[in-house]
């Protein structure tokens, strides 16, 4: 049975949650099963596939490699925080739809969060830079080509230079 519990107060997508968690509870499980924010997906639980990527104080992290207790006092953004609802997509999401950048959609939340952090910093990346930035996220369906096209399009749109 739980040998240690921790009180955590964590802000996710702008909402403050207070919970008591077991020390070993993974942040990914906490988000998915305690907070019922199931948009964050788990693919490997060893930090390779990137599907569980969330923004932790603005930086992309693999939520399967962190404990929920480590999130105490921090701010997290998940895929649910990108857009108000499915009829008002974030430019990244819209570009993914326009370019057919997803198939089964399972890796997609992690890719969106990784690339959000990247495009927030890099406003006019080229294809090689996009591929480098994407290379920590595995996708088994798309062969990446349409994702790369989507990110180039999103960068343009977010930079206001084209559409």
């Amino acid at each position, binding site marked *: *049975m739980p040998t240690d519990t921790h009180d955590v107060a964590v802000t996710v997508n702008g909402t403050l949650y207070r919970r008591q968690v*077991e020390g*070993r*509870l993974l942040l990914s499980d906490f988000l*998915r099963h305690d907070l*019922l*924010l*199931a*948009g*964050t*997906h*788990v*693919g*490997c*639980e*060893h930090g*390779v*596939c990137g599907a569980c990527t969330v923004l932790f104080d603005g930086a992309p992290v693999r939520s399967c490699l962190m404990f929920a207790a480590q999130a105490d006092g921090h701010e997290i953004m*998940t*895929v*649910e925080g*990108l*857009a108000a*609802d*499915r*009829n008002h*997509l974030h430019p990244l*999401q819209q570009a*993914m*739809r*326009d370019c*057919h950048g*997803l*198939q*089964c*959609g*399972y*890796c*997609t*939340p992690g890719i*969106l969060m990784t690339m959000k952090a990247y495009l927030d910093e890099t406003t006019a990346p080229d*294809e090689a830079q*996009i*591929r*480098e930035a*994407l*290379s*920590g*996220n*595995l*996708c*088994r*369906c*798309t*062969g*990446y*080509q*349409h*994702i*790369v096209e989507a990110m180039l399009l999103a960068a343009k749109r977010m930079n206001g230079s084209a559409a």
Partner: protein
Amino acid sequence: MSTRSFGAPIRRNEDARLLSGQALFVDDVELPGMLHAAFLRSNVAHARIRTIDVSAARARAGVVAVYTAADLGAYWAPGPLLVPPPPIKGAVFNQRTQVPLAKDKIRHVGEPLAVVLAQSRYLAEDALADIAVDIEPLPAVVDLEAALINPSATVHDDVRDNVAAHVWQGRGNYAAARAKAARVIARRFHYDHGASSPIETRGIVANWDARADQMTIWDTTQAPVFLRNGLAAMLGLGERQVRVIAPFVGGGFGPKIMLFYPEEVVIPWAAKTLNRPVKWIEDRLEHFFATTHERGQTHDAEIALAADGSILGIKDVFLHDTGAYNPYGLTVPINSQCTLLGPYVVPNYDSTFTAVFTNKTTVTPYRGAGRQHGVFVIERLLDIAAHELNIDRAEIRRLNLIPPDAFPYNNEIIYQDFAPLSYDSGNYEPILDKALEMIGYRQFLAEEQPRLRAQGRHVGIGLACYVEGTGIGPYEGAKVQVQANGKVNVATGIGTQGQGHFTVFAQIVADQLGVDVIDVDIVTGDTDQFYWGAGTFASRGAVVAGNAVNEAAKAVRQKILKLAAEHFECAEQDLEIKNGEVSVVGVPGQAVKLGALALKANPMRGAVKPGSEPGLESTQYFGPSGGATASGVHAMIVEVDPQTFTLEVRKYVVVHDCGTVINPLILAGQIHGGVAQGIGNAFYEQLVFDEAGQLLNASLADYLLPTALEVPHMEIAHTVTASPLNPLGIKGAGEAGAIPVGPLFAQAIEDALGLLEKKVELNEIPLSPNRLFELTAKLR
């Protein structure tokens, strides 16, 4: 709708849900009182079980139950044979199927021995450590040849020679053809496929509702209808008491059509026994052992050629690793045997295979499903033949292509769907020409390669041809219904794992019923929404279910026109359906919305006429008489670093013919993803087993899926040869991208390093930097 949506690059209906994190996957199902399962799995490949003591695990706080095979009682039984052997004369098939929990014997690492049900997955996994297993280890059967010739052990005690199957097929007279040949080339080839590794692993949630006498199961399956039928029978329930939902599924690629996995048998039983919802989600480590693979074959093949390079005949004898069990019958090796013939005229063929039981995870189809292995053999034989006969690699292929006037072309052997291997239609030479033009074949060989070689660069070119039997039966069905809100609902029995069914089926319906694509709602993979069906496999969803959707939409269109003609008191031919309403041509203002007609078709008063049905609804089925054969050519220019043997793919082109195209954007995605998996198979992914049957690289850090840096930009072009076997003229496209990549890599790397001139051939897949270093050792 004034423009046809069929054939247009329509954006997907399903994307908004997936992009906003609101699509339901199996692990998202949360039910009150739900228990969580963890399986104790064997850590040895082969052993007899003496005892399994679960008493300490049962006593652990938070644990509700622990079961072994003994606890399953009469429920314990080997799984069914999913695909019986095709009716091939003389075929030997020894059926040995997987069991829910190992009872007397362990046959591969990862085979489940016990299951713990606890209040959380964390607690369930804690309790696994409490279980004491006493076993008698046995030597593992790992190597295929040793398994047959000098077996260290037998995987199944009553199959003394480890032979799972033995099959001969052929046509003509190979010996006579060989006697006339100007050249005979014989080689040994080894082709190893791998693990499909969808980013979502498998999972299942079962909920037994005792008050309603209903079982609901959410499962990451590609075949929900078969799963429902089988589980109903096992659980002693009627099919109508079991509802299987395959919600959004995070990639399938074949292994998710395998059933019944042990977990699929155990979890619903536990839910019913305990009267509690139960969830099990496979972790990545489990996935490497517990989800089926598609692994290796060793081919001893020879080709008999005339002096001009014409194929006189091919003889092939191969071994196929089927793993510990063979529930999927002969599908994979039969595909290898059939697809080896490719787009070529092979007048004499003599092919024998032996499927071998080993102490490894069971082998079932994974994207390509054995076709890769056959394509590798024929393409490599042609490359070596071209070199030895001093013929251009493209020209030896062109010389042997089946001519366009030879279709339907019968290869006279039996395919996986039990029908003769007959190609319905095709026109292969324009595909080859287009690929050569796009890759710049002549210019590369004449100018670019010599120029770069003079600079000390190691660049090479390759091309590979293939055919793919797609769209096989038996059938699929669809129900199309116009709803009162004017939207159209479509239900079909297949499951979806990212193929864009929510969009391509909507495109078909939109054109028939004059509505916008976004106003067509598709339901897949819910057995309560559509009762009948087979599943999503063998590149058949768009072909078989797509045509069923089209037939049902056509029938609803007739109902709409009939009812509207009565409404307007006019002839049906005076009506047009467009923008969600029916109007009388040339009479402004005379229009009725489809939703209003749907209400009218289901009146509250009055009488529905005898012989008619309420509603604007139709259910139709489609079963093709045979598979539709797609074809294509891939070509690639690669640069190899001669020190590190790392690769840079400088150009990659795919020219593909899958008949009529429904949505070119979605089709391109299917091809891209297939090529990426092909590249993984060719150069990065390898399941490495030791002599004890232990998988040594069971993590995504060690089993390397290609990233955005390994998969190049691809250029895609299409030719269209419609299939005569279905009204829409479609051929399947799901697997094509993955099939010819192995031989393409081998050929292009050989060319880049000039290996054939140095008498080094790359006759195995996967390759890797390490393996290239080893294979070229004699050159240093």
